[in-house]
């Protein structure tokens, strides 16, 4: 019985059905037995058609790069998936445990990381807040869980440090840890490396790539450095109000770059 490391972390256990039991609804090499589907998604805002006919199929363990010019609707797609903007169409997650469909639990690493730096909030406090645990419940038990998730992003030594003192790269990783608390079905990263240097960007991509393998997560990441993204992503989707390209990252890359150059 293979234990999902995350569910063991959160105190739950379940078995992975295995690749040959016939209960998988979507299965590609290197992917888990669960997936997130967007079916005929359409978003109209203020009389403008922002997104049209979006059909996506994102598998567990798959890192999908979502690229496109400014104003293409990438962030709007994320907001629609989060339920912040109204949309037509369907968003569903198919669980690998029972094969049933439900709305996915979504973790978001936002683009804007600005916040009140004078707030006396530590990394532990933030993780406790996003986990929904009351401030007045025992901190010790949660501390152990928080320590485990911070270990994933390499920030255990900063568990009691005020987040106002974190560097840009550390904040990125902390926000990633917050998005993974509790473990979501789908992880969305909205230009997570804006404002970070090249080395920091590569480190972050490595981290995201290893996390999606470690926890069998479906990951969609918005970015603008297509060439670097393509090195880490399994798949690349070029969006400009509609899906114009969708395929293996390295195969889509040349056409995507050509399309981006056309926009300039």
């Amino acid at each position, binding site marked *: 019985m293979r234990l999902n490391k995350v569910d063991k972390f959160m105190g739950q256990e379940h078995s992975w059905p295995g690749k040959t039991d016939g209960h998988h609804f979507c299965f590609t090499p290197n992917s888990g037995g669960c997936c997130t589907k967007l079916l005929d998604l359409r978003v109209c805002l203020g009389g403008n058609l922002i997104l049209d006919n979006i059909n996506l199929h994102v598998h567990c363990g798959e890192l999908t790069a979502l690229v496109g010019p400014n104003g293409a609707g990438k962030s709007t797609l994320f907001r629609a998936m*989060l*339920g*912040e903007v109204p949309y037509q169409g369907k968003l569903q997650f198919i669980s690998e445990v029972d094969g049933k469909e439900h709305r996915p639990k*979504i*973790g*978001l690493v*936002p683009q*804007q*990381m600005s*916040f*009140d730096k*004078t*707030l*006396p*909030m*530590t990394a*532990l*406090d*933030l993780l*406790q*807040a*996003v986990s*929904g*645990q*009351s*401030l*007045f419940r025992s*901190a010790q038990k949660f501390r152990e869980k928080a320590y485990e998730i911070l270990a994933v992003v390499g920030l255990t030594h900063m568990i*009691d440090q*005020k987040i106002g003192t974190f560097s840009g790269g550390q904040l990125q990783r902390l*926000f990633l840890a*917050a*998005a993974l608390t509790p473990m979501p079905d789908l992880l*969305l990263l909205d230009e997570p490396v804006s404002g970070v240097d090249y080395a920091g960007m590569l480190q972050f991509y490595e981290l995201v790539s290893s996390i999606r393998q470690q926890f069998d997560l479906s990951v969609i990441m918005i970015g603008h450095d297509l060439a670097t993204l393509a090195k880490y992503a399994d798949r690349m989707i070029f969006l400009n109000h509609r899906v114009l390209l969708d395929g293996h990252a390295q195969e889509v890359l040349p056409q995507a770059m050509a399309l981006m150059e056309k926009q300039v």
Partner: protein
Amino acid sequence: MAWWSSLISALPFAWAQYEFFQEGLLGIIFIASILAVLGTLVVNHQLSFFSEAVGHAGLASMALVVLLGRWPLGVMISFAILLAILIAWLKRQRFLPADSVVGLCLSFTVALGVVLLSRGGSFSKYSAYLTGDIFNITGSDIFVMAILSVVLLIGLRFYQRMLLVAFHQEMAAARGLKVFLWETSLMAVVAVAVTVAVPWMGILAVNALLIFPAAIARVLAKNLRSYLFLAWLIGLSTGILGLIISYYLDAAAGASIACLQAAVLFLALLGKAIYLRGRRPLRTL
């Protein structure tokens, strides 16, 4: 209340023997605690100007009570909630920056209050609302504050959600929190607490009791738990001490407490600066 009276009158101070002071002391324990805890959320959500506006809108609230001549508490609470919802809605329309919206509401409600109360040249008899009078508090007023305290204690279970909304709205929305609803609810609660406290703390000083304890706690706290606890402790202790000082100075209690809190904040900032300077490594030439 008899048990409270006998407890306080056992203290070896002149002020402890007076019933009005005993009641004022009990009132300040509740008011200072409520405002200090709420103040942490006010500062987190950057609602300091809003709470100042609500305090000043107490003039209009008082004017309505005088006009209607009945249900003072009901009128005050209803007015406070409506004002909070109005400001939240106006901010959401984004036709002006948020602080301008609050400024407009402040100006209007103050003007409305002054117009209604100054009719016939009678404003001077309402000037006590500017400074407040905690020693006018009665047993039923204390009961209302006690109820508010219990409501606040129960509401603290939502503190983490409020915190997330204040910290990062996008992150909070991604967690399924209705940001506008949570913010408007907080504004309504703050408006009610401030409006109810105005008769005793005064329009001019009530906001200080919200902001100062949270500000001092921010300087000293290492994490959220200590931030909340320190804000409450500082609010309570400066509230009691300020009340005693106001007795000896024969000055308004609310303003005395605010001055004391300002002094404590200054000392906290100074102390922290000295402490940090002592910890910094020496510069090498």
